[in-house]
């Protein structure tokens, strides 16, 4: 028997071999850019060279036929070079302005929306969900498809006060990350423990250590070593579920959706910020999640109407204050909005600054 093939530990590939020649030639030598229309970037190099980028939305989870179709378009109408953005938009790189309009037309004909630039609602950053994850409380690709159908017009236009980044997460680990608007699973009941399986499946001390509020302790249940949860302390975060699948946290009825706003990773104007809770108790309602979509559209419409140019969601709320945010969006303010986690007093109003 021949020796097994050992991997070539080559790491991250060098990108120049796949890069548009105009970008290779002008690497680090760009002068400025503008946006001739939504979905198109125009970059000018110090050498005078120019490159046009046409950005289009994709479904991220793509079958090989979709990818080949995008390749056909890049070969026929472009220069055969593409790249992807962090939000799974595809970018076609074109060395010649005359190629822009025919490519946009062809993308439209094949059902790929052109947009996602500037002050648009760009593609939603998302996770795996029911399609592939081992701990999801909801789907990811389906939620995104349903929402982007609703937000399509805002993707292909640049009519928001500033860019809008939306994220989704199918568990409270929050793989989707910070967003101007985040739609995340929020469990509302402690895990249901299958005591017959715990001893065989779970490394009990590491499950105990995983709990952020020390609510889990080892216990003998029906004569078997297992774990028990102090349900008064439990915050229903689901942290115990990945290391111990018999501690089922996902619940078809009680796993709800919560909506958070004001997360921003850019340093522009204000420092990067975390998203804050604004709505919860929203049903996890496949296949189109209409209740979540309605809340998001209400927040977006309010932001679009009330925010000033260049204000991101967090900048806008900083200006108008949270009481006005809840008033304008008509969302209920509850005791659950007041943080009680570590460092929470910093989030309280220690002043006489009140808006009337």
């Amino acid at each position, binding site marked *: 028997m021949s020796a*097994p093939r050992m*991997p070539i530990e080559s*790491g*991250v*590939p060098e*990108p120049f*071999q*796949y890069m548009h020649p105009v*970008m290779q030639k002008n690497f680090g030598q*760009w002068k*400025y850019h503008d946006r001739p229309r939504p979905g198109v970037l125009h*970059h000018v190099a110090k050498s005078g060279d120019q490159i046009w*980028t046409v950005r289009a939305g994709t*479904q*991220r*989870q*793509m*079958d*090989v*036929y*979709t*990818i080949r179709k995008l390749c056909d378009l890049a*070969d026929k109408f472009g220069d*055969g*070079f*593409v*790249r*992807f953005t*962090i939000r799974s938009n595809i970018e076609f790189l074109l060395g010649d302005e005359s190629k822009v309009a025919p490519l946009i037309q062809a993308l439209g004909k094949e059902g*790929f*929306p052109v947009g996602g630039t500037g002050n648009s609602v760009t593609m939603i950053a998302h996770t*795996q*969900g029911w*399609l592939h*994850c*081992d*701990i999801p409380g909801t*789907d990811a*690709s389906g939620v995104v*498809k*349903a929402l982007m159908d609703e937000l399509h017009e805002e993707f292909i236009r640049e009519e928001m006060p500033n860019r809008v980044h939306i994220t989704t997460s199918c568990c409270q680990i929050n793989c*989707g*990350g*910070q967003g101007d608007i985040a739609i995340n699973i929020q469990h509302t009941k402690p895990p249901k423990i299958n005591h017959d399986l715990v001893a065989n499946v779970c490394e009990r001390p590491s499950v105990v*250590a*995983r709990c*952020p509020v020390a609510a889990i302790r080892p216990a003998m249940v029906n004569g078997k070593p297992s774990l028990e949860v102090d349900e008064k302390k439990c915050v229903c975060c689901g*942290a115990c579920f990945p290391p111990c699948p018999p501690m089922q946290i996902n619940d078809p009825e009680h796993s709800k959706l919560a909506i958070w706003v004001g997360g921003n*990773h*850019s*340093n*522009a*104007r*204000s420092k*990067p910020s*975390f998203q804050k809770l604004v709505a919860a108790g929203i049903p*996890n309602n496949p*296949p189109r999640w209409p209740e979540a979509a309605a809340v998001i559209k209400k927040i977006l419409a309010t932001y679009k109407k009330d925010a000033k*140019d*260049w204000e991101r969601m967090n900048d806008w709320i900083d200006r108008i204050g949270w009481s006005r945010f809840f008033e304008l969006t008509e969302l209920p303010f509850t005791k659950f909005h007041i943080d009680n986690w570590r460092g929470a007093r910093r989030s309280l109003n220690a002043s006489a600054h009140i808006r009337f």
Partner: protein
Amino acid sequence: MAKPMHPTPRIDQLESGPWPSFITGLKRLANDDGKPYQDMVVDLLGQLETSYETRKGYWKGGTVGVIGYGGGVIPRFTELLDEDKKPKFPAAAEFHTLRIMPPAGMHYTTDILRKMCDVWERHGSGLIAFHGQSGDIMFQGAKTENVQPAFDEFNEMGFDLGGAGPAVRTGMSCVGAARCEQSCANEQKIHRMLVNNFLDDMHRPALPYKFKFKVSGCPNDCMNAIERADMAVIGTWRDDMKVDQAEVKNYVASMGRKKIIDNVITRCPTNALSLNDDDTLTVDNRNCVRCMHCINAMTKALSPGDDKGVTVLMGGKRTLKIGDLMGTVVIPFKKLETEEDYESLVEVAQNAIDFFAENALEHERTGEMIERIGLVNFLEGIGLEVDPNMISEPRQSSYIRMDDWDEEAAKWFERKAAA
């Protein structure tokens, strides 16, 4: 003879509407007569429809990998069993993902994308995600026996597995110098040097938990590095920003003074901008914090300075276990010009990873470790000096022992004198 399609009334509803549909794509694969993945995707749709019906997930992990590596494959086995404990959707009972690292900056020729599709048509489900939140190309859906041959083909094409589990993870870098005038760094070089120097820690997971590198070429931080990376490298500059006064005047002429004042001047977080009576711009560069707003707003008139380098932050992460944390500054400015400069950045990373490996608790991220032990202990552990740029404000609490204040104050003056 292909398997018949399962009825999928719920996910069928995701085929309508203007946004591209992943369900339509999956159905294309499920109806693709004669292809090795056909039955697998038929059954995948069956399991997904079940999830949509019951609102539950049905995948569990396991142990699947390639020879020579301990990570990089995400094993998935179905948990959806019939009365006889047999998989209800047997053709999709194994549905593993290969995490493959893309070229830095996610550049592709159509040629390489077509070759990837061909490999995945032979060995996988035909479903590929560009890209996962980890920054990998996710080749989703291989049977256990096909994982090795698929990897071998990708590996021969010049691609390598990314990270999974308690390991150095796949990194990310922005398009940067390849197309962006705001780039202050060679992002792809930083990205490749950092990740490629830690491939052993990536491919043989043995750290307390994950460790991520992300590189953004300017403080717009398009890679969400501060928010998501254990070590974030952000391009910046320390001399004056460049102002083309003729272009400033053009902006004023086309947009009007009010718009420039409302959207640019007064939006500066440190009031470092002033629009003069002759429509030129004065910048208080010593008080500019490099936030990028005015440069974003007036791309033709304003740009970063020439004395470029990077700011390094550490400790960003998501919710589990103590709550979301941003990275915080550990190196306010580092020049990256010579090979030695780049090597010393790798050394910083090496020190941080060594300290993390030695001192973090199991399943604790760098940010949580810093929170537990304090930033000063971390800095001393990795050999970095304190700097006022690392804080928003000095301590408020007087509950601290300061026995060696004089020595520490002397160090500050020595460092200042040496600078």
